[in-house]
C-alpha cells in the first residue's frame, strides 16, 4: 500500500476537511484509476494513551476497512486539535480504492461539542458508525444525531450486567452492533443447522438442557446466546443465580411439562468468546459443540447410538476478524439481537 499524508497542529475541522479534499484531488490527478471508497464512516473515540492499540486493531480488520475512519484521541489537559490524515491506496491495481484515516488529538472539553468537530469531516450520505471502546459517554451523547450505528463490545466491560443494560439503552437510540453478539454467530448458525432437519426440529419443543461454556470475561456473549435461544423458542425464563462460583445456573419454562436447565460455565480459554455449548432434549439426548482445530468438534449422545463425534469445518476469524465483521454488520440489520438482548438482561437480573 502507498500513502499520502498531511498533518497540522492547532488546527480546525475546516482545515482537516480541506486537506482531505486536496489529498484526494492530487491523488486523483496523478492516477484516475483510484477512486475514494464511499461505503462507511467510522468514528472511534479513544484514550490518547491507547490510540496505538486501537489503531493496531483497526489495521487487522482486513478487507472490511471503513472508507473514512476518524480516530478521536482524548488527552487530559489538551485544549487544541492536532490532526494527522493518511490516504492509503494500492497503486499497482488498475482501478483501486482509496481509504482515508484521520487522527485528531483533542482534550476532554472538546467531547461535549464533538459533533461540531466531526460533522464537517464525515462523508455525507453514507452510514456513520461510532465505536467508543474506552467509555467517553459525553462523546457518545454528543454524536447521537450524527451516527446511524453504535458499535460496542459487551464482553469488554468488567460488569456484563451493566454492559448489557448499556447495550439496551443504546439500542433504543440507534442500531447496535455488539461484538459480543457476533462472537455467538458461528454457534447460532451451527445450532440452527443441527436442528434444521424436519425430524430433529421437533426436538426443539422438548429441550431440557442448555449449557454454554465461555471464556471467563465473555459472560455477556454467553448470556446473549442463552437469551437468543430463549427468545427464539419462546421460553418463559427465570433469572440465573450464581452456581457457587462456577458460573450461573437457572431455569426456563416451556410449553412442555419439563423445564430447561440453563447453565453458563466459565472455562480456561486463551481467546475471548464461547468455548462450547451442550444442548439436551428428552432427558436422554445431548449434542455438544466445542472449539477444535479446524472448526467445532461435535459430539452427539443418544441411547440407541451411544456417542458419536465429528468435526464441523470452519476457520477462526480471530479478534481482528470480529471487529471487521462488526464493521461489515453495520450495513445489515439483525432482528434477533434485540429480543436476545432483552432475554439476556432478564436472565442476568440477579447477577451481582
Amino acid at each position: 500500500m502507498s500513502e499520502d499524508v498531511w498533518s497540522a497542529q492547532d488546527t480546525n475541522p475546516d482545515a482537516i476537511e480541506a486537506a482531505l479534499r486536496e489529498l484526494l484531488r492530487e491523488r486523483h490527478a496523478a492516477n484516475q484509476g483510484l477512486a475514494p471508497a464511499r461505503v462507511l464512516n467510522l468514528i472511534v473515540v479513544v484514550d490518547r494513551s491507547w490510540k496505538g492499540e486501537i489503531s493496531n486493531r483497526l489495521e487487522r480488520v482486513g478487507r472490511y476497512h471503513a472508507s473514512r475512519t476518524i480516530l478521536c484521541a482524548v488527552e487530559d489537559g489538551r485544549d487544541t486539535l492536532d490532526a494527522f490524515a493518511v490516504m492509503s491506496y494500492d497503486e499497482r491495481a488498475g482501478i483501486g480504492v482509496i481509504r482515508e484515516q484521520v487522527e485528531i488529538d483533542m482534550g476532554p472539553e472538546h467531547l461535549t461539542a464533538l459533533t461540531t468537530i466531526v460533522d464537517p469531516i464525515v462523508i455525507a450520505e453514507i452510514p456513520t458508525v461510532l465505536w467508543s471502546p474506552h467509555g467517553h459517554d459525553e462523546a457518545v451523547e454528543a454524536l447521537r444525531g450524527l451516527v446511524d450505528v453504535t458499535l460496542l463490545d459487551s464482553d469488554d466491560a468488567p460488569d456484563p450486567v451493566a454492559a448489557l443494560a448499556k447495550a439496551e439503552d443504546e439500542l433504543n437510540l440507534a442500531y447496535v452492533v455488539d461484538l459480543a453478539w457476533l462472537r455467538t454467530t458461528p454457534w447460532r448458525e451451527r445450532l440452527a443447522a443441527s436442528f434444521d432437519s424436519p425430524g430433529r426440529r421437533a426436538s426443539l419443543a422438548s429441550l431440557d438442557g442448555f449449557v454454554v461454556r465461555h471464556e471467563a470475561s465473555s459472560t455477556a456473549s454467553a448470556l446473549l446466546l442463552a437469551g437468543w435461544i430463549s427468545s427464539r423458542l419462546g421460553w418463559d425464563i427465570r433469572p440465573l443465580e450464581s452456581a457457587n462460583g462456577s458460573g450461573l445456573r437457572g431455569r426456563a419454562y416451556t410449553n412442555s411439562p419439563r423445564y430447561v436447565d440453563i447453565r453458563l460455565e466459565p472455562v480456561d480459554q486463551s481467546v475471548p468468546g464461547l468455548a462450547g455449548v451442550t444442548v439436551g432434549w428428552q432427558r436422554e439426548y445431548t449434542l455438544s459443540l466445542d472449539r477444535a482445530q479446524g472448526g467445532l468438534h461435535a459430539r452427539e449422545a443418544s441411547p440407541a447410538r451411544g456417542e458419536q463425534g465429528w468435526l464441523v469445518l470452519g476457520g477462526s476469524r480471530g479478534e481482528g476478524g470480529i471487529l471487521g465483521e462488526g464493521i461489515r454488520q453495520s450495513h445489515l440489520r439483525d432482528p434477533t439481537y434485540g429480543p436476545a438482548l432483552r432475554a439476556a438482561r432478564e436472565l442476568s437480573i440477579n447477577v451481582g
Partner: protein
Amino acid sequence: MQSAAVATDFEQDNPLIAGLERLPVRPTALVIFGATGDLSHRKLLPALYNLAHEGALPERFELIGVSRSEFSHDEFRNEARESIERFSRRRPDQNVLNGLLGEMRYLPGSFDSDEVYGEIGKTLREFDERASEPLNRVFYLSTAPQFFPVIASKLGDAGLSECERAETRIVIEKPFGYDLASAQQLNAQVLEVFDESQVFRIDHYLGKETVQNLMALRFANALFEPVWNRNFIDHVQITAAEDIGIGGRAGYYEGAGALRDLVQNHMMQLLALLTMEPPSSFDADRVRDEKLKVLEAIVPPSPGDVAAMTVRAQYGPGTVGGKRVTGYLEEEGVDPHSRTETYAALKLHVSNWRWAGVPVYLRTGKQLARKVTEIVVTLKPVPHLAFKNIGSVGVQPNQIILTVQPDEGVSVSLGAKIPGATMRIRPVNMEFRYGTSFLSESPEAYERLILDAMRGDATLFTRGDEIIALWAIIDPILQAWKADTTSPIPQYAAGSAGPAEADALLDGDRRWRRL
C-alpha cells in the same frame, strides 16, 4: 418473562434460522465425477475449501471424487491439497484444510463401469450409517460431455437417482449439448432418470455477483425501468472479448468455436437477464419462466438470414500486448483448413411489445485488443438539440454500460457542459465500481453455485426448457455455417477489435463500442 412471540410449530419452521445470514444446508454427500480434471482442481476443490473455511458447508459433509486415474485416497488428497493451496482465493488454514481433506474419498474407475456405481452406493450407505441419517446426495458431473448421459443412466441403473428421506440432485457442467438435437437428446436422457427439479445445469456466469446484480439494477431501481424499452433504447451491444488465444485447448475449441463456447450460454444468459420482464418473485421457477419467455421471443434467423445477421471470423497473426502471436490456423492442434470461428457477431431481435425494433448485437472473440465483458445499452438521441448552433459536436446519446469483467461496475454516460463562456457539451461518465461501494469481496461463482445446488435452489441454474430455447436460437446459425463450406472465413489481426465485416452488421450510424 415470556419472550416475544415466535413460531412454535417447530416441525414446520426452524425458529433458529431467523436473522442468520448463512442458512443451514442439510447434511450432504457430494460426488464429483471428473474429480482429477482441470475444473475440479482450479475451481471446485478451492470453492469447497472456501465454503469450509467460512463454515458454510453442511454440518455433515462428505466428498467422493470419481475419475479414471488410478489414485489411492491419499494420492487424491495430496492432489486436492496442492490445487487448493494454489488456486484458493484465500490462503488455506491448515487445520480446516486437513479437516476437509481427511473426509475425502476417491474411487477410481471408468464412468461406464457398474462396479464404480456399486462402490459409490456402498460408500454413500456407509456415510448414512455413520451419520445415522441419510445424507442428501449431489452428483456433480465435471467430465467431458460425452459422459453426461452415461453417468446419468448408470446412476439410475444403480438406484442412486433417489434416496428415501433425502434429496438427490445432479449438477451438469457446460456444454449441455452440441446443438439443438443433441441438447434435446441429452435432456431426454437425463430426465429419463431424474426429475427436472433434481437437475442443476450450470452456467457459471450466473453465479457471478455482477450478473446477479443486473437483476438488482433493473428491478431495485425506479430510475431505469421507465426507459427500459423500445421508446428510449436505440440498441444494445453485448461484448465478451478475450485477449488470449485458444492456448492448449485446440482439441476442444476446434469442435466448439466461439458461438458454442460463449454465445449460446453466457452471452445469451446476459441477454435474457437484460431483457426479461420483472419476475413476480425471485423463486427459481418465476425467474426462469421470465427468461424462457424472452428467449422464446427471439426469432431464430432463417437459413436465408444467417449471412445478413451473423459474422464469423478467425484471428490471423498479429501483435497482442506487444508480443507477436500466430494466427488460429497455425496454432498447434488446429487443422490448417479449419473453418471453426474464433470470433462471432450476431444481430438479434426480441420480438415482443417491450423490445420490438431494438437490435441486440452480440460479439465475442479470442485474441482481441482487450479482455472485457460488458453490456452497453445505448439510448436514443434527444429529440431536439437546443445547443446545436453554438458548438455541440460532442453531444452523444446516453449509454448505460454494465461491466461484468474485469472491473465490475456500472457507468452512465451523460452530456455535460465544458467549463467556459460558451455552451459546449461533451460526454462524461458517472461511474460506480463495486470495489468502492462494498466492503466485502465477491465470492467465486462456484462457491455460490455449489452451495445453491446443495440447498436445492435452482434460481441460478438453467432449466431444461430454457436450454432448448437457447439452442433453438443458435442452431440455425450453426447449421448454416456448417452447410457453407466454400465462402472464405474472414480473418482479423490478432490484437485488433475484430473483423471489418462485423461493422456491416450495425445499421445506420451505429458503431461497435471501442474495446
